[in-house]
């Protein structure tokens, strides 16, 4: 019994850590952390991490491969977008499509180099890391005297990727937002119970009724809390929709489809997967093409949030994405890791960032703390894996 208890704790260790860290900062900031505005900030400030880390997760699954170029590519693509919209005066729709096209072209080139020419991913993307920062900055300087292109004149673009849906003033309950929260929690409960009923009906091993109830209650509490806080802060941030849709799509791909399965088996044993009739090169190609597409979406989100394209955009984003994955339990050697884990990892880092900013921790110390958290997460994973192996 106590063993089972421990297992549950171990499986949800990061989630528990997340809650504890949140409570810690709430106390340290005398409740400031718990205010609606901070919930909103948590999402809008970290949306890029969720999207990029989803792409990074897919790359890492194939064998610990990473993409170092995504941060610089955000800068480059932002510059392209700025030129298209502000200098060439193209419509937002056309600009968005053209930016996506540029992303797809880069993804194809990168995927080809890595999958078919066999260039080690970190070297191929290191080239992009260096080149796109320079290229992006050069484009911006050539087209603007300040080195930055403002998107303030593009309300359509901004409304698609930033701002709030059915925005209401601060401190007033946003009905749409709260109702969405209620619907979402109802869905979670229904799905949880249906899944279990289905398993029981077919005679498979299923979680006990109590654990399903506990799980559902906790999930509903978390969703409703979030929905309430967001409702009080003015409504659903538009980026939240983007993040949720992307996370749901990739959760489905990784857990329920053949394509997703191959990402895991390639990370586990590429040669065995190839000899099982899977085109492993195509999967590798797809991983990097996918990464570039998600990087393009990140660019929309980021430029919309800052309402500008500038040369420092995307700095260290690749590292944030990798850190979110690793903290979220994605194996640095490939073959294991879940989208949900990555979401927890990204949120944890976001909470730590936010908490430290609110408590006024020095920026340098913030970096030190993040480094330690990253290391601790990996060490924890290795020890947990060892414990499991000797069982």
């Amino acid at each position, binding site marked *: 019994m106590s063993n089972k208890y421990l297992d549950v704790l171990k499986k949800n260790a990061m989630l528990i850590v997340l809650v504890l860290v949140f409570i810690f900062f709430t106390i340290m900031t005398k409740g400031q952390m718990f205010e609606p505005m901070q919930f909103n900030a948590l999402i809008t400030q970290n949306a890029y991490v969720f999207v990029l880390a989803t792409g990074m997760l897919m790359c890492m699954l194939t064998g610990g491969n990473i993409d170092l170029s995504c941060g610089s590519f955000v800068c480059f693509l932002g510059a392209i977008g700025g030129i298209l919209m502000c200098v060439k005066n193209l419509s937002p729709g056309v600009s968005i499509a053209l930016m996506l096209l540029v992303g797809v072209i880069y993804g194809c080139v990168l995927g080809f180099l890595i999958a078919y020419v066999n260039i080690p991913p970190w070297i191929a993307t290191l080239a992009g890391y260096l080149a796109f920062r320079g290229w992006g900055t050069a484009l911006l300087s050539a087209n603007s005297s300040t080195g930055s292109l403002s998107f303030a004149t593009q309300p359509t673009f901004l409304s698609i990727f930033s701002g709030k849906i059915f925005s209401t003033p601060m401190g007033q309950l946003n009905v749409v937002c709260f109702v969405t929260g209620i619907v979402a929690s109802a869905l979670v409960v229904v799905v949880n119970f249906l899944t279990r009923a289905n398993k029981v009906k*077919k005679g*498979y*091993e299923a979680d006990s009724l109590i654990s399903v109830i506990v799980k559902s209650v906790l999930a509903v509490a978390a969703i409703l809390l979030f929905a309430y806080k967001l409702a009080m802060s003015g409504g659903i941030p538009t980026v939240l929709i983007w993040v949720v849709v992307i996370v749901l799509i990739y959760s489905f791909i990784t857990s*329920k*489809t*053949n*394509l997703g*399965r191959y990402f*895991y*088996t390639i990370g*586990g*044993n590429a*040669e*065995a*997967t*190839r*000899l*099982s*009739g*899977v*085109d492993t090169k195509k999967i590798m190609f797809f991983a990097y093409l996918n990464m570039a597409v998600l990087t393009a979406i990140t660019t929309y989100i980021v430029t919309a949030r800052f309402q500008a394209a500038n040369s420092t955009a995307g700095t260290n984003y690749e590292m944030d994405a990798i850190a979110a994955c690793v903290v979220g339990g994605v194996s640095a050697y490939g*073959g*294991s890791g879940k989208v949900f884990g990555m979401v927890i990892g990204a949120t944890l880092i976001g909470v730590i960032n936010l908490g430290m900013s609110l408590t006024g921790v020095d920026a340098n110390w913030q970096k030190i703390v993040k480094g330690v958290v990253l290391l601790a997460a990996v060490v924890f994973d290795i020890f947990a894996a060892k414990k499991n192996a*000797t*069982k």
Partner: protein
Amino acid sequence: MSKILLEMKNITKTFPGVKALDNVNLQVEEGEIHALVGENGAGKSTLMNVLSGIYPYGTYEGDIVYDGEVCQFQTIKDSEKKGIVIIHQELALVPQMSIGENMFLGNERGRKNAINWNETYGEADKYLKMVGLSESSRVLIKDIGTGKQQLVEIAKALAKHAKLLILDEPTSSLNETDSRALLDLMLEFKKQGMTMIIITHKLNEVVYVADKITVVRDGSTVETMDCHTMEIDEDRIIKGMVGREITDRFPKRSDVKIGDVNMEVKDWTVFHPLYAERKVVDGVNFNVRQGEVVGIYGLMGAGRTELAMSIFGKSYGSDITGTLSIKGQEVNLKNPREAIDAKLAYVTEDRKGNGLVLSNPIRVNTSLANMKGVSNNGVIDADKEYQIAVEYKDKLKTKTPSVEQNVGNLSGGNQQKVLLAKWMFTSPDILILDEPTRGIDVGAKYEIYCIINDLAKEGKSVVMISSELPEVIGMSDRIYIMNEGKFVGEMKAEEATQENIMACILQSTGGGEAG
């Protein structure tokens, strides 16, 4: 009777949940070759790990008495200081370093912070001579064959002034000639007074070199046989290992109708993927009929795996020429997918390297080559996948608590069954089994043979590649003999004997160049 060099008394070692060793006793006399035999998981390697200090003193119960004193080894270094040196099954050499560097790795010659290279290579050459290697110690490990690498390991052990040498499956990756040379070297060392413990699955080797044989079964020592006072043969040892007499090592196949030719290979020639001028498979012709088990016998390096993999969707080699016909239709299989779709299956010899995804459960491994069979439009039907995995687990009698168990936690025999399940689930007509029983114990071997017989009964064609003569002769309807990339003989099972197969190989060796 000479003196007892090593005595392990009442050794008990428990891992969480399992008793790996239970009151094991082992006595080794000075100057003898002592063989440890037993099924996989019987506890042989655990016992040797206790002896060499990998499991430090205190983590086990019982005493180790070596050279008259009770030893309490904390690390491998401690046991090596006493002259107990273990050579593991997996070679522990750094490929990019020279023989000499490898030999003194962690034991460098010279002063504390500066390596004396002259002394290193000089000493290394001396030890290489002792093991009969003519290579210079400056040659890199990756440039010599596995047989020679094994000899380097032994030379490395000698350099540590070994008095008791433990060899864990030393010949598992060697061909017959290299194995024999290694065993002869052991006999040579014995003459010079060295004491050795050998762990092996190959019973003919045990009979060849051992003075005494200790059988380990389920974590206990069952018996020790003295080869000089008793009549020992392989059947006698097997009886000790499995605890009963296996009357027939190869189950009979009855009522199998051999039908039409299912697959035919003509003038098949394959070149090495990196060294484009090296012919690995040279003008091979063969066929296999429905319901037939065809054996391909050849020593390691004869080109058997290369032949099989090149047939299987050109997954090996370059510049492949020749024709492949399946059911009378000439086909051109460009990749493994096309091969699978053509009802061909290749069950690899290297199940850990390119057969299974060890970090994934049995369920995932079972469906991997036929995901279409468990999915609708690319979405996995989890129920169906689970049921298929359970069905094959039951059918092949895979021993596991659940199909959610990671394959890496299974024993070799059970891993082999999962690998077979994966390929059987692709419903092939032709199965190429590459060393299907390598590294698995006698009991599991028998079960694999039964599976092969069932496949033949279902009308499938089985091509079995093996370097174990008794297995090829016992299981095949027809045997092809392969040597140096060519097929050098074909015989019916009734005509085949170990002698005439070996004669076939000896006659052809080197003859190819002249003719």
